[in-house]
């Protein structure tokens, strides 16, 4: 029981590539269908579709696999949805956006049983939101696999007004709710699926360092 799972090994490998000392910083692996699972639920956003086709193409698991897909924000690319359809899984739902996908996920999980495995791939903020929603529906954290494809954008919670800002690409950023300039930290809440944003110019109002984009 104490042997590291393949997921864990992947995480350890990633850890060496991401030298952040913050332990709550999420680490992502590579999707790999779990053979014993009774049902597979796949959530993909934008380029995440390619991680799904890489992992599932030709796999026995497809007969028990439901895929929920949301195109990347502001993208008109139809290829990811076409690629997913070519897998011939049990069910494919193409959502109009992330909100729609998460609502569909809530419905799917409300009747799901133990033995269900969840796979999430897409931008970093998508993975965080989807995982947070799934955990609230009772799935165990180790029944979820994640693979990061696409933008390194983050979901950020402002510690001052508690509002969320999605799709944050660089730090500092402006809180979409209260307008403060926020330093985006690597500290992460699994419950909220969001990074912590802290006012960067509290001591010296108006002194805002140039924004730095997050690495891939």
């Amino acid at each position, binding site marked *: *029981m*104490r*042997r590291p*799972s393949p997921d864990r090994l992947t995480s350890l490998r990633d850890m060496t590539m991401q030298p952040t000392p913050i332990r709550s910083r999420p680490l992502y692996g590579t999707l790999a269908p*779990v053979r*014993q*699972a*009774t*049902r597979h639920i796949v959530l993909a956003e934008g380029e995440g579709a390619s991680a799904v086709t890489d992992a599932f193409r030709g796999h026995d698991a497809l007969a028990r696999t439901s895929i929920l897909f949301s195109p990347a924000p502001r993208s008109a690319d139809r290829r990811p949805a076409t690629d997913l359809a070519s897998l011939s899984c049990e069910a494919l739902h193409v959502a109009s956006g992330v909100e729609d996908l998460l609502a569909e996920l809530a419905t799917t*999980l409300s009747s*799901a*049983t*133990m*033995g*269900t*495995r969840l796979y999430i791939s897409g931008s970093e903020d998508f993975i965080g939101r989807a995982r947070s929603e799934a955990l609230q*529906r*009772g*799935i*165990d*954290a*180790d*029944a979820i696999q994640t693979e990061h494809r696409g933008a390194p954008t983050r979901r950020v919670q402002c510690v001052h007004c508690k509002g969320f800002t999605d799709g944050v690409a660089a730090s500092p950023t402006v809180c979409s709710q209260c307008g403060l300039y926020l330093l985006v930290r690597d500290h992460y809440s699994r419950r909220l699926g969001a990074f912590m944003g802290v006012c960067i110019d509290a001591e010296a109002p108006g002194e805002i360092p140039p924004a730095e984009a997050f690495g891939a």
Partner: protein
Amino acid sequence: MSGGVQYPVRVIETEALSPTVKRLRLARRDGQALPPYSAGSHTVLTLDGGTRLIRNAYSLLGSTLAGGAAYEVAVLRSPQSRGGSAFIHDHLTVGTALNLSAPINLFPVNRTARRHILVAGGIGITPIAAMAAELAALDLPFELHYAMRDTASGAFAAELTARHGDRLHLYVSERQERLSVRDILDRQPLGTHLYVCGPERMIEGVLADARTAGWPESALHAERFLAPDGGEPFALRLARSGISTVVGEHETLLEAIEAAGVDAPYLCRGGACGQCETRVLVADGDLLHADHYLTDSQKSCGQTIMTCVSRLRGRELVLDL
């Protein structure tokens, strides 16, 4: 001292729950209260067995979860016993003085789970029944599956039936009733956790079925207390203390260390908790690892040993103690 806080207690009640299971009620000798504990906790009883000190771990029953006046444990007379459980059955009476350790929980109920499946075989019912009591008191959803050889050996069955009604499922092998893990695991909602305690073979079977049904490791909980076997005697040298002694045929490594006057670390004395992990300096022979704590690769590299259940087959073992 090792093993945590010790309370001097005396036996205030004994009851034969079945021909092989004896319930003990223990209260502090100074009249003070005992602390509350969570279901799944165990205590280590220390008693004078005449020629040797007996230290055995027992699950605390659900009847005394709130602590206070007394604790209760149920002791199975073990046929493979090295004497501890037989001594308790034959010699412990109301008034006998002994020590018990503060409660330790290596088998707790997961409070973030939404539903709980409890599976017990034989005397493995003791921590499982405590969990059922805790979950019933919190009004959380659970089902309890209890397998036993025959109704006479099913200590607790009547009490549990009265208490939990149709949440309890009994399986008596004498009546050809078989517990089917696959049926139990089928169609359980997300957030269900599984707990199993019983004979080693049963635990392995239940966990294997759950894994085959795709259950993730974090939803699986088991408690295996090993009654350490004896074995061939071997020489033992404690390098830091400069002590040489012999581990006898019916003695564990930990008991030999304690008999030599060294206060070595321990908690569960059943190969589960990891507290007694000790560095091996030299092993002239084969290490016989019997614990459930070290990984297979740690066992094969042989740098450490769990003194409570493991031993050496060979001439001499040198430990960093």
